[in-house]
């Protein structure tokens, strides 16, 4: 049978009760949230359940909201069910001082580098990841560049005038 947003919502609330919250449908894609220690359980349920079977991890990224204390970093998973051609978005929020989230690299091998990239840019510590080190930036970098407080430009450059360049 073909999936609909309401069907998935009802199955999730049936299984997890009120731990899955914040059901929204921006631009027709179901988007929901769960506490950060339940992320693997929710994804495993979506993977195993025969009529849901979300077995393809399309994307994994993070977003930094500096204005929400206690929920600064959002880790966003985009899952895709190839059997029914249906996509959903699953978010997990965490505090910026203890950014520990369980890794999904054992469930989806695609998450391996995507989690390394998220660690590199935002500092999210994925617990249980086989090889969590920087992937795109230089290894000696000591800050997490995509966080909102850091500037885009290299502050030590001398040949470009910040009045004319930088925004």
């Amino acid at each position, binding site marked *: 049978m073909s999936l609909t947003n309401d069907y998935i919502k009802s199955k999730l609330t049936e299984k997890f009760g009120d731990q899955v919250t914040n059901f929204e449908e921006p631009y027709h894609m179901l988007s929901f949230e769960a506490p950060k220690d339940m992320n693997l359980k929710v994804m495993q349920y979506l993977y195993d359940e025969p009529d849901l079977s979300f077995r393809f991890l399309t994307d994994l990224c993070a977003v930094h909201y500096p204005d929400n204390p206690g929920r600064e970093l959002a880790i966003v998973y985009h899952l895709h069910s190839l059997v029914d051609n249906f996509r959903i978005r699953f978010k997990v929020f965490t505090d910026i001082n203890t950014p520990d989230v369980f890794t999904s690299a054992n469930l989806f091998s695609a998450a391996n580098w995507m989690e390394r990239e998220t660690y590199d840019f935002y500092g999210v510590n994925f617990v249980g990841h086989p090889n969590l080190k920087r992937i795109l930036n*230089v290894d000696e970098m000591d800050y997490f560049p995509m966080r909102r407080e850091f500037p885009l430009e*290299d502050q030590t450059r001398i040949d470009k005038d910040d009045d004319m360049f930088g925004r």
Partner: protein
Amino acid sequence: MRPVQYNLTGENNIKLLEEGPEGYSGEGYFATTLDKVVGLARKNSIWPLPFATSCCGIEFMATMAANYDMSRFGAERMAFSPRQCDLMMVMGTIAKKMGPIVKQVYLQMAEPRWVLAMGACASSGGIFDTYSVLQGIDQIIPVDVYIPGCPPRPEAVIDGFMRVQDLVGKESLRRRNGERYKELMESYGIQ
């Protein structure tokens, strides 16, 4: 000063080939100074090292292909080993992670060596004014010719290559041992 210096006024007697260096010629001999002959030989047989990182590399491939052939200018053999090449063409964005590698490849080249920076990213960082991109390779190695463009058209690449040929042809044989060159190398920290 306009970048294009030739074919400006529509003259009809354009000489496509230079006649060769000045000298004294006669029946079966030609006498000229050593550096002119060496320059002539060097400039028409430059072996480039394509150091292609990104989009400019694809335009270089188009320049090397049959439509805008670069081997007409003597660059037939693209030497991929720095020990065997004369000209390092750096094409594409150089990130800070890649910088030490560019320097290492440059140091492996043997004198006389020239560097061509192709594209806006190699010349000055291009549109990527970010924390991770080196703002021009002349922060780490001395560059002889810059080709602007994003990416430069193959005709622009050929024009840049011809400028390198001019530089190679007119270089004095004593330049690499002179004081100014030594100061230039020291300012980059190269022995």
